[in-house]
């Protein structure tokens, strides 16, 4: 037996219910259009930038994980004042160096936050 027909809405009308200002949701959808054309073009410049994006993403992920670990140790009181200072300086320099590399490859912070689909954002 055939299933009952779904509610007969025109194709353009997909707002089923809403509480709040629709414009704010639509602004969020702008990001979808930014993701869709993200394909690898096999010319030299794009391949180089794509590889840099991937490598810098991994480095930034590691940097953030190490920073969080350092913060936990600092808050747990297992680091001396000298160690806190030394780690803080190291992370600060690393962040500065990352900013320089991103600039040289024309990458923004958002470019290093890969969307893993159902798993969410990487960073």
């Amino acid at each position, binding site marked *: 037996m055939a299933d009952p027909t*779904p509610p007969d*809405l025109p*194709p353009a009308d997909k707002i*089923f219910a809403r*509480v709040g200002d629709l414009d704010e949701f639509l602004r969020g959808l702008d990001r979808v259009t930014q993701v869709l*054309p993200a394909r690898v073009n096999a010319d030299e410049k794009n391949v180089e930038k794509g590889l840099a994006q991937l490598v810098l993403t991994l480095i930034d992920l590691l940097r953030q994980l190490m*920073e969080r670990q350092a913060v936990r140790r600092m808050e747990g009181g297992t680091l001396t004042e000298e160690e*806190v200072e030394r780690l803080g300086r190291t992370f600060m320099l690393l962040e500065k160096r990352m900013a320089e590399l991103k600039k040289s490859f024309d990458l923004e912070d958002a470019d290093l936050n890969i969307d893993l689909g159902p798993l969410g954002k990487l960073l």
Partner: protein
Amino acid sequence: MIYAYAITAGAPPADVLDGAPGLADAPLAARTVEDVGAVYSRIERGPSPTREDILRHEQVIETLMRGRPLLPARFGTVLRDEAALDHLLTINHKGLAAGLDRIRGCVELGVRVMWDAAGTEVDEADHEPSPGATTGTAYLIVRAAQERRRRSTEARAGELAANLNRLLRPCAKDGVVRVLPSPQVVMAAAYLVPQDRTGEFRNRVTEAGAAFETLKLLCSGPWPPYHFVPELEVPRG
């Protein structure tokens, strides 16, 4: 090559296939393996992620889903030829048949919940390094404050999403919830809702909006059940 739109229970009638042109206006065709069908069209070139192609993909699927259970294919699903499609249907027959049974009589409704970002902020004092802190120490103190804020935001979002899900989930057969997919979005969820309960679901969304005044809710649909398609075994090579 061929472009796949959806898996269907049996083959859709010819008049339905004739009434929905596919990508680049290519005619639709269907193949079946036992009681599981697939709708596709022959294409000369791979699809592009353009507005036109994406809308056409969705239009075909929405036409097909009127009156029959359907598992939508992800945009851009391309196979070598009909033999490859038959093979895919054959090796996945059991899972696809079960998947079609699961979504029978249901539609997908999406729920997106946004909050006021200002409500997630902590005191600026948290960001200030302690007096006399040296550079490296000051850096880690600021990071510690940011980390506390991140954990607090995640906890609040998790709690809100759990409360909203408790309100909405009873009207649905299944649900997929993502908490804090972006800083502005508390929760993005997809619910598999029986068609005779969509009105009740809509009322629950409105109730949730009244109960959580600082949140903004958008319920969209009905959609094909994109989030409730079983994982397919894909042949290598």
